[in-house]
């Protein structure tokens, strides 16, 4: 089949598809401006909105029901800025009491000094709300503080310092890249997958479903080209727009950093130094990538875009209408996102296994390249698996393009 590929015809089809999509204003807006401006605009709007909204916000305390009597020391430890308590006759009341997600059953005897018999506070969580979960955490922290206080009193009575209870401590220091590499290494390929799919989608639909709906597919396939020529020409166009969106998405992330830095400085002045430092770390402004690392990232992004665009093109070849194509594209994108998410587990397992998984391997390779970990073998495996999957998806697309039942669906 590939021996009969006609390159001039493939390029002609690719150029025609690119020209047609370039002239589709809405498709171009979706493929370029949205990835470029969406995140920067959010980064601008959020601090501005926060500067207006935050002064007007008042934190609502979480109400916790208590059955029994808490000793004063324990009450002080439990009731912090976020919790207020309500006396209950029975814990069961809490289930019916409005806005009360947590209740505590207090035992009759509470230890008030080291050496007293141990006791147990039973916590009832009546809802799975975030407020209830936060209250449980706050209560557990309060109990821990209470225990520490009792220990400190006992140690003091024995003439010892409470620090002696923890002779060995830990301290974490971030490397130059900090935890940003994790965020960037995972987030960037994930964003690329989404932007590539969004960018390629318009061209994929224009080149396939629209071709069938407007009645040009029959003329195209009646020309002296093979079905493989047609699919490859369309694939080049889809990948072109997928990459444009991906690049716009990358520029958008860079713009986001600039916009949020400016917006935080301008609108959240008092917080700025700390916030900017945190953001700088989180967004990886301090990351330095070598030329080799850059090449590894770029080549992997290319193969990642190609597999994603093939994944978007395939259902469009099969679909009989715009609606059907959009219905199929969503799960295709989810497949890509799922594969990228799987890379979160890459560092716990043998790198060869993950590197040989299409898309997943690329995300791991890109993440590694950010911390200067470059392995030719894993790079090769990741890119080969992407290209192999791209080839398989294209072969399936060509198979569908050869099926009479698909070409003349509904016609």
């Amino acid at each position, binding site marked *: 089949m590939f021996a009969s590929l006609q390159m*001039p*015809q493939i390029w*002609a*089809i690719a150029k*025609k598809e690119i*020209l*047609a999509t370039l*002239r*589709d204003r809405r498709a171009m807006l979706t493929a370029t401006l949205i990835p470029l401006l969406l995140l920067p605009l959010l980064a601008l709007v959020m601090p501005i909105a926060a500067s207006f909204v935050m002064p007007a916000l008042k934190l609502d305390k979480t109400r916790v029901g208590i059955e029994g009597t808490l000793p004063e020391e324990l009450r002080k430890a439990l009731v912090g800025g976020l919790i207020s308590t309500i006396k209950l006759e029975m814990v069961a009341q809490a289930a019916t009491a409005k806005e009360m997600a947590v209740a505590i059953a207090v035992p009759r005897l509470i230890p008030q000094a080291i050496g007293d018999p141990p006791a147990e506070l039973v916590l009832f969580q009546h809802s799975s709300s975030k407020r209830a979960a936060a209250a449980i955490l706050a209560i557990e922290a309060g109990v821990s503080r209470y225990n520490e206080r009792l220990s400190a009193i006992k140690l003091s009575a024995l003439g010892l310092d409470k620090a002696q209870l923890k002779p060995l401590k830990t301290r974490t220091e971030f490397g130059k890249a900090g935890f940003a590499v994790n965020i960037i290494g995972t987030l960037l390929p994930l964003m690329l997958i989404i932007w590539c799919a969004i960018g390629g989608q318009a061209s994929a639909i224009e080149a396939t479903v629209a071709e069938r709906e*407007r*009645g*040009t597919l*029959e*003329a*195209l*396939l*009646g*020309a*002296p*080209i*093979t079905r493989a020529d047609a699919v490859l020409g369309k694939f080049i166009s889809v990948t072109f727009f997928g990459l444009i969106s991906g690049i716009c998405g990358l520029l958008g992330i860079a713009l986001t950093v600039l916009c949020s830095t400016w917006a935080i400085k301008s609108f959240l002045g008092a917080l700025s130094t700390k916030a900017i430092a945190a953001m700088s770390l989180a967004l990886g402004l301090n990351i330095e990538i070598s030329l080799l690392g850059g090449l590894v990232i770029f080549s992997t992004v290319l193969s990642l875009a190609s597999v994603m665009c093939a994944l978007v093109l395939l259902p469009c070849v099969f679909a009989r209408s715009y609606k059907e194509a959009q219905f199929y594209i969503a799960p295709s994108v989810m497949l890509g996102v799922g594969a990228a998410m799987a890379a979160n587990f890459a560092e716990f397992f043998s790198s060869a296994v993950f590197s040989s998984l299409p898309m997943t391997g690329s995300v791991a390779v890109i993440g590694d390249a950010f911390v200067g970990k470059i392995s030719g073998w894993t790079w090769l495996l990741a890119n080969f698996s992407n290209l192999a999957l791209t080839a398989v998806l294209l072969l399936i697309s060509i198979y569908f393009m050869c099926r*009479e*039942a698909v*070409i*003349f669906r509904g*016609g």
Partner: protein
Amino acid sequence: MIEITNLSKRFKQTQALHPLNLSIPGGCIFGLLGQNGAGKTTLLRILATLLAPSTGDARIGGLDVVHDSLAVRRKMGTVSAGMGVYERLSGRENLHFFGQLYGMQKSDVQARVSELMRELAIGDWIDQRAGGYSTGMKQKIVIARAVLHRPEVLLLDEASNGLDVLARRALMDFALSCKAQNRLVIYSTHVMSEAEALCDHAAILHLGRLIASDSLPGLLEKSGANTLEQCFINLVSASERTAHVR
């Protein structure tokens, strides 16, 4: 020019074409007549190499439609009722694109487009985006696209559907001019008056079966009718009676 031997086509449970044999001479306008669903489009799609026959074979100028499909397509141009144009491209860009697909040199395409601009009177609007064209204008671009590479065979599959009187007249004149250039035109239609005005020979398909094929005078004589419409009705009725007896 075209030799069809024992050709049939089945789509799952539907026998779209029963085995048929047909010989079509070159340099004429050959009418393919039949009601909707008679199998005209299926037969033309097989000749255009878009569908593969279930049995039998078809040869165009000695080339097999299955095994020499690319060479067959170079000899053929197709216009059908449902065909459209790339609406974000101008008429000229549409034609240049297909010129590239047919492997034509850029200068050849330019010269041929100039010829077609005169022949089809499309010069005034050929550089506008095709999205703004009327049905008739689009159909002229579809016709220009089909004959751009000077095909030996032109398939017109109900190409006059939806056209106004003038556009229909232009299409018929164009078919006649192709015949004058010694090309074979296969004109599929269910409008008998068009076929009567244009065709030298005709074949009548009914429910996927070839029920008659002859020159126009031969068909009229065979059916004992004065008009092609009456001839069609007589032959179809006779075919249905025969099928009923069977």
